[in-house]
C-alpha cells in the first residue's frame, strides 16, 4: 500500500495529459540545471512522472533536446533580458559559408499526429543586436516527423513563424498524400499546400508570446487551428486540414533556423521562453499564463 501511494501522484501526472489535463506538467516547461542528467530519464510512465513532481530538479536533458547545425549555432541558458529574476534560452547562429544555420531547442517526448493539442511559447528579438534579415529566419515551428533513412519525404513544417525583413509571417503547410517516397503517389514539399500570412511588424526588446490551439488533421475537410500572438488572434481556421500523414507526428521547436543563409546577417541571436503543452480541455487563459507575457 505504501508503495502504491508513493507512486500515485507520479502515475496521475503521467496520465493527466491523456485525460486532457489543463497544462501538461511532465513534458516541456522549466529547467533547474543546465546540464545533461547523469542518470537520463527514459520514456516510461514512472520516469516521465518525475517531471510532474515539483520537488524534482529538472536537468536540461530531461526536458529538451538541442538541434544545432555544425558550428553555426549555440544554445545558452541565460537571464531573461526583461525580467532578470527569471531564465530563458538564447539561440545564436553564425552565418556559415554555405548550407543552413540552426540553433533550436525542442521539448522531448511530445508528438501529436492527429487531434487536439495546445502549445504556448515566447520569443524575444534583442533590441541591441537584432538586425532585420533578408533571409527567412524561422523563430519557432511545429514541425512534422520525417526520416529520410526510412524513405520518408522531406516536408515543410505544418506551422511556423518566420522573421523576414521588418515582419513576422505565419507559415502553414499541409498535404493529404502519403509521406513515403516508395508510394506511387506521395506528398512533395513543392506540391504541398502552402500559406503565408504577415502577422505583425517585429518589435525588438519585448517578448512576443504565442498560444496555439491545434486540432491536427491530414484529412481534407477536417482539422482546426487558432493562433494568438500577444493576446490577439492572428489566425483561425475550421474544417481545414493542416498537417501530413507522419508518425509519430508534429512536434515543437523554438530558436533560429535559417534554411538559406545568403541573406542572413553575420550573427544573430534570439531569446526563447520555455515551451508548454496543454490537453484537449485546456483554455487560452491557462496557456497564456505560462508565457513570458502572462495571462
Amino acid at each position: 500500500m505504501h508503495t502504491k501511494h508513493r507512486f500515485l501522484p507520479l502515475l496521475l501526472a503521467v496520465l493527466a495529459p491523456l485525460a486532457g489535463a489543463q497544462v501538461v506538467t511532465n513534458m516541456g516547461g522549466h529547467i533547474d540545471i543546465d546540464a545533461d542528467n547523469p542518470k537520463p530519464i527514459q520514456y516510461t510512465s514512472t520516469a516521465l512522472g518525475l517531471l510532474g513532481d515539483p520537488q524534482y530538479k529538472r536537468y536540461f536533458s530531461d526536458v529538451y533536446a538541442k538541434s544545432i547545425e555544425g558550428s553555426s549555432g549555440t544554445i545558452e541558458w541565460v537571464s531573461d533580458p526583461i525580467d532578470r529574476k527569471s531564465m530563458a534560452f538564447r539561440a545564436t547562429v553564425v552565418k556559415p559559408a554555405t548550407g543552413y544555420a540552426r540553433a533550436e531547442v525542442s521539448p522531448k517526448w511530445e508528438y501529436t499526429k492527429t487531434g487536439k493539442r495546445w502549445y504556448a511559447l515566447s520569443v524575444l528579438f534583442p533590441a541591441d543586436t537584432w538586425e532585420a534579415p533578408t533571409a527567412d529566419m524561422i523563430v519557432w515551428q511545429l514541425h512534422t516527423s520525417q526520416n529520410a533513412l526510412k524513405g520518408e519525404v522531406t516536408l515543410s513544417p505544418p506551422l511556423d513563424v518566420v522573421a523576414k525583413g521588418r515582419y513576422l509571417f505565419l507559415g502553414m503547410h499541409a498535404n493529404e498524400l502519403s509521406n513515403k517516397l516508395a508510394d506511387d503517389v506521395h506528398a512533395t514539399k513543392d506540391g504541398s499546400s502552402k500559406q503565408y500570412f504577415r502577422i505583425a511588424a517585429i518589435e525588438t526588446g519585448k517578448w512576443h508570446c504565442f498560444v496555439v490551439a491545434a486540432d491536427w488533421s491530414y484529412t481534407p475537410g477536417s482539422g482546426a487551428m487558432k493562433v494568438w500572438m500577444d493576446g490577439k488572434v492572428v489566425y483561425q481556421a475550421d474544417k481545414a486540414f493542416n498537417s501530413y500523414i507522419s508518425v509519430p507526428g508534429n512536434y515543437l521547436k523554438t530558436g533560429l533556423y535559417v534554411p538559406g543563409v545568403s541573406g542572413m546577417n553575420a550573427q544573430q541571436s534570439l531569446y526563447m521562453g520555455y515551451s508548454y503543452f496543454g490537453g484537449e480541455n485546456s483554455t487560452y487563459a491557462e496557456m497564456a499564463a505560462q508565457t513570458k507575457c502572462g495571462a
Partner: protein
Amino acid sequence: MKQQYRVSLLLAASALCLPAQAAVSNANYGPVNTLADFNSKFSSRVSAPGSVRFGPNTETGVRNVATVVLKPGTVAGPAFADIAPINEAVPANRPVDAVPRWYTFSFFLPADWPVTADPVTLAHIDAHVPGQAAPWALVATGTKLELKISANHRAAGGDDPASADNSLTRSYPVDTLIKGKWYCFAVAADWRSELRKGLTRIWYNNQNEALYEAFNTYNTYAGARHVPRLGLSASLTPGAAARTLIVDFPRVADGDWPQNMFNASPCKDYPK
C-alpha cells in the same frame, strides 16, 4: 507543371521589381468620368432603392467614387448595396494555363461610420454557389478588419457533396479600421476547388510585401463563378444603424502586377 512555371516566373519577376510589362486584358483602369460611363462598366446590387450614388464625395475630394448606403429593412434579414464590374464572372477550375485573375478593392470609411459589434462585409468575391459563403471577403467587426476565406474541395453532388456545413473557413486580422482613410487591396487568384491546386495572393495599401500568399491551396467551390463586389452587405435587424461606405471602382485584369493595380487606386501614394 506549366501553371507552376508561370507562377514561379511571376514570383521571380515580382521579387526583382521588374517593370510593368505583363499583358493586361480586360482591365478597366481608366477613370470613371460620367454616370453613363459608370453605368456602362458596373452593375449595382441593392436591397433598398437609391442605395448607390455616383460622383465626387466631399470627404474624399474631387475623385469620382460610388457611395453605397446600407439600410435595415422592416424585417430582419440580409441587406446589401454594392457594385460589380459588368460581364465579370471567372469560373473555377479553368484550364491549367489560365493566368490568375487580378482584382482591386478600395474603400473609405466616412466620419459618420457607426462602429458596432455586428459584422459588415465591405468587399467580397462572390462565388454564386447557393448556400456557400463568399470564398474571399473583407469584413469589419467594430474597428477590426478581417480577411475571411471559405472553400470546399468536394464536388457539388455525389455521396459527399459540398455544403456550407462542411466548407472550410479561415480568418486573418488585417488592420484596425480608422475613419477618413482609404484602404486598398490587390488580389490575384487562380480559383480552384481541387486539392493541391489554387493560388491566392493579396497585397495591401500599396505595400511591396504581400499580406497573404497561398499556393497549391484550394480557394473556392466546384461550379463557382467569381464576381468581385465592392460595397456593403450584412444581416441586419430592423433597428440596426444605417451606414455609408465610399468606394472606388472594383478593377479586374489578367496577369498583372500589384503596382499596376495600386497605381489606379486612391492608395497609390501610400508608403511602400
